[in-house]
């Protein structure tokens, strides 16, 4: 089998990403002499049009029947090269990639060692690929209904977008009302339009739309199935359970705010007039900014980055707090024109459309800005007896280099965004991953920001990372574009990679039946053999390794293929010794 194969090997230097650490010519020089290799070339960008065309032409010119691309991670460009060889007339599964960028050139700093490792990885791919088998994609029907989890601005927008395209939507909200975190907000930055105006129209249209089933006080209990064909159980008011069938799932579960009482030096919970941004929103919504004793504050200090950009709490920036702080400076100035407002910040992040202008306008309205080092945050203490203000904020102002004491009647803490406490449960429910801070991980941070590692499950808004309203809405709409594209096709194509049982080898012991987490293995009592229901199999391979008879084969991850890879990485190394 091996010697009959004609393998084309393509080594990408990825501009200089691979080429500056790995000697690609040395890799091709070594690889071209490996058994079965008919042609071996290197090129600066294999994924570019000329790169792909080179492969397509070579397939025809040299009669290639297998292709190895040594380049980036298969998680990046495997689909690209599968499509390319398919275009050249080969089955897409006749491709193997060697990851010589993410797992080689980018992580090593010795040219020789990196080049050696690239050779070993390429050798392993060349040894594996002759044992690849051709598969045809499986077509499954696409259910046009969608489940939207979370009724904030992202969920509302996604639901409307799908319903406007005439597709049924189930909108599940944990709370008793729609609106999410946006409903807790008064005005929005930087244009100071009312959050209520943004929401009221959405909520009204959602509740009136016959295509949308709104389920309040409800939670998703369980989800099973796969893209295009999910089943979910929704529990409402703690008891009634509804079973629904959907093709796609959009997760829009939002965020929770950082718990300000964790930062002892700010005195939240100790001083009644130290409030969080959400406490202040409540006052602004009620139209009166007052201290606990009902009086209007004269001195207001706003502290940014509470719980954010810190080694102690969350390392990331929450993105929206700087502009929200400016919004408060404006809002308090309008509610209490005589108030003296200081904004303590670490860096002013005014990156969005209209935000830099907003910063300038706020400065013109007599807000005093003082910069502090995020590692040396300000402190809040009680004012001395007889003072005409009730707290004293001390800050090392780093632009002037002076220690400044600021009188304060009210301190506003700009609390950052955090992943919700139930994000782990949600991730498990829909089978997606979370990053170290608990945010859901997207399929690709730049090129596929709303898809996830589970086909048919999408994420939008602040459940994926801190986000402002425009970005949240854009993401919500992006998810629906992805879903509508699939609905338009009517059917979807799923990978034909699953496990298969060889009936002749199966002893009918049923060990695999219990191992399968998806109940995808059935036992036939007449034949006394087990069989795998292919559409339910998710190809983990747990049964393959567990079968005492070696009767189960994992498509595209067979024992033989993996043995060849092991030999490849080690043979190369020992041939050198």
């Amino acid at each position, binding site marked *: 089998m091996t010697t009959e194969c004609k393998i084309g090997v393509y080594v990408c230097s990825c501009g200089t990403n691979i080429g500056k650490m790995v000697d690609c010519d040395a890799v091709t020089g070594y690889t071209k002499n490996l058994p079965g290799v008919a042609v071996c070339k290197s090129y600066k960008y294999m994924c570019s049009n000329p790169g792909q065309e080179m492969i397509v032409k070579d397939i025809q010119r040299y009669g290639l029947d297998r292709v190895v691309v040594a380049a980036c991670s298969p998680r990046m460009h495997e689909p690209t090269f599968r499509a390319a060889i398919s275009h050249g007339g080969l089955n897409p599964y006749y491709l193997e990639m060697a*990851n010589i960028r993410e*797992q080689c050139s980018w*992580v090593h700093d010795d040219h020789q060692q990196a080049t050696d490792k690239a050779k070993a990885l390429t050798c392993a791919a060349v040894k594996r690929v002759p044992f690849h088998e051709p598969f045809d994609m499986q077509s499954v029907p696409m259910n046009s209904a969608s489940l939207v989890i979370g009724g904030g601005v992202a969920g509302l927008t996604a639901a409307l977008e799908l319903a406007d395209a005439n597709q049924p939507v189930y909108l599940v909200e944990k709370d008793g009302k729609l609106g999410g975190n946006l409903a807790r907000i008064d005005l929005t930055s930087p244009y100071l339009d009312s959050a209520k105006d943004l929401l009221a129209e959405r909520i009204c249209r959602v509740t009136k739309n016959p295509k949308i089933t709104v389920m309040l006080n409800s939670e998703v209990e369980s989800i099973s199935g796969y893209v295009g064909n999910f089943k979910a159980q929704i529990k409402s008011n703690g008891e009634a359970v509804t079973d629904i069938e959907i093709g796609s799932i959009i997760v829009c579960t939002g965020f929770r705010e950082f718990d300000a009482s964790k930062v002892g030096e700010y005195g939240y919970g100790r001083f009644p007039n130290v409030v969080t941004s959400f406490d202040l929103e409540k006052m602004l919504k009620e139209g009166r900014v007052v201290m606990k004793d009902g009086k209007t504050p004269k001195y207001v200090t706003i502290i940014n980055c509470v719980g954010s950009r810190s080694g102690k709490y969350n390392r990331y920036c929450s993105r929206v707090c700087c502009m929200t702080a400016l919004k408060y400076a404006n809002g308090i100035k309008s509610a209490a024109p005589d108030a003296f407002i200081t904004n303590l910040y670490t860096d002013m992040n005014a990156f969005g459309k209209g935000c830099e202008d907003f910063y300038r306008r706020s400065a013109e309205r007599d807000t005093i800005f003082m910069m502090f080092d995020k590692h040396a945050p300000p402190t809040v203490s009680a004012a001395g007896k007889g003072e005409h203000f009730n707290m004293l904020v001390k800050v090392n102002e780093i632009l002037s280099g002076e220690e400044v004491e600021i009188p304060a009647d009210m301190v506003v803490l700009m609390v950052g965004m955090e992943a919700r406490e139930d994000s782990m449960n949600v991730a498990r429910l829909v089978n997606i991953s979370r990053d170290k801070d608990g945010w859901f991980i997207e399929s690709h941070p730049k090129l596929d920001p709303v898809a996830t590692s589970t086909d048919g499950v999408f994420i939008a808004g602040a459940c994926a990372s801190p986000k402002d309203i425009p970005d949240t809405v854009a993401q919500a709409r992006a998810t629906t574009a992805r879903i509508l594209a699939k609905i338009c096709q009517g059917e979807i194509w799923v990978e034909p990679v699953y496990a298969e049982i060889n009936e002749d080898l199966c002893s009918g012991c049923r060990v695999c039946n219990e191992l399968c987490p998806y109940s995808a293995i059935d036992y036939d009592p007449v034949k006394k053999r087990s069989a795998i229901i292919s559409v339910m199999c998710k190809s983990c391979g747990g049964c393959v*390794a567990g079968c005492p008879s070696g009767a189960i084969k*994992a498509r595209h991850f067979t*024992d033989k293929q993996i043995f060849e890879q092991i030999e490849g990485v080690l043979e190369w190394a020992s041939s050198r010794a």
Partner: protein
Amino acid sequence: MGFEPRIVGFLCNWCSYTGADLAGTSRIKYQPNVSIIRVMCSARIDPTFVLKALSMGADGVVICGCHPVDCHYISGNYKAMRRFPLLKKLLKEFGVEDERVRLEWVSASEGQRFSEVINDMTDKIRALGPSKIRVQLDADKVER
């Protein structure tokens, strides 16, 4: 050049392989002694994969999967976790030192942790020296 360990890494596609890719995109440097083989899940790792690698002269084998509770396939990592001690028992009988074969949890966001695992393992095996099988294989080759 002194002894350089040859280590084979079996990484699950969803957490650990992605974590190793993240080490790459974050340009976190680690030692180049591990060659990675991707499998869909740590539950796919047949003990024979590890035995094969060791019999081919690998100085070490590392299996990486999703953290407990975080498996893409619900419970695959628990299967790997339960099979692992049995394998270790067998390896002990064969005289394979404990440090040579490891099971580690690396999530998709732990590029840093992945690099630390690899560096730590490489250092420990470098200190331990080549595997007995490798020494024998090399000797056989010279004889031939």
